[in-house]
């Protein structure tokens, strides 16, 4: 780490297929047509988004829990609390969501992950925590 955690801007990434209800859903229909395929795209989740603003589109996990309490899969409120007591500098303004079922991860590796990394860098993120669901 180039600087203390207490000075870092921290972003979170969930693999639970979370998307805001006003955003494009993860593509469940194509996966139903081709079960070997999983949607390799990503969604941005602004800080302050809650469970009432999102849907979980991952068909391989029990989505009831994240739908009841988003912090179970994307702990943005907990991250803000840790910022308020000085553990981290501040939570990033934007967090990220992918859908973790990726048997063929080429697009995720070569397009999605680099795009997320570029976006984080542009937004001044110092550290990221991936939360696999």
């Amino acid at each position, binding site marked *: 780490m180039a600087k203390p955690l207490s000075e870092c801007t921290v972003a979170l990434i969930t693999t639970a297929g979370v998307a805001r209800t006003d955003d494009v859903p993860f593509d469940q229909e194509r996966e139903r047509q081709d079960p070997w395929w999983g949607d390799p795209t990503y969604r941005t989740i602004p800080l302050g988004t809650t469970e009432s603003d999102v849907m979980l589109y991952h*068909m391989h996990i029990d989505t009831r*829990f994240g739908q009841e309490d988003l912090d*179970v899969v994307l702990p943005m409120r*907990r991250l803000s*609390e840790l910022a308020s007591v000085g553990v981290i500098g501040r939570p990033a303004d934007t967090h990220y969501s992918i859908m973790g079922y990726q*048997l063929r991860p080429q697009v995720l590796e070569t397009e999605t992950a680099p795009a997320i990394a570029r976006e984080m860098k542009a937004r001044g993120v110092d*550290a990221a*925590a991936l939360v696999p669901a």
Partner: protein
Amino acid sequence: MIPEFTRAVGVPRLAGIAYPMSRPMGRPGDARGQREVLRALLDLLISGRAPDTYVELPYSWPETPAQARKGADVHPPIAQLLARKPWLLPKLYAGG
């Protein structure tokens, strides 16, 4: 969680936790427990100085696996396909 999978893709630091799938940070509504897990995860940013650092977080789930699965309504399309065509299973292991 399945730390072996995550470790295999080469993440620089990995915290394993013996929680059921779908609830990596803990139970809904358990802010204190979720905060402890997140704090432990972030601590790894400081303590994990070498590549492939792996720690197991010292938390246990308060239910049996059967209790944790109760009421689950999860039907992945790939599982339905393989139930119909089990001879395709080797293709799954080969990465689709």
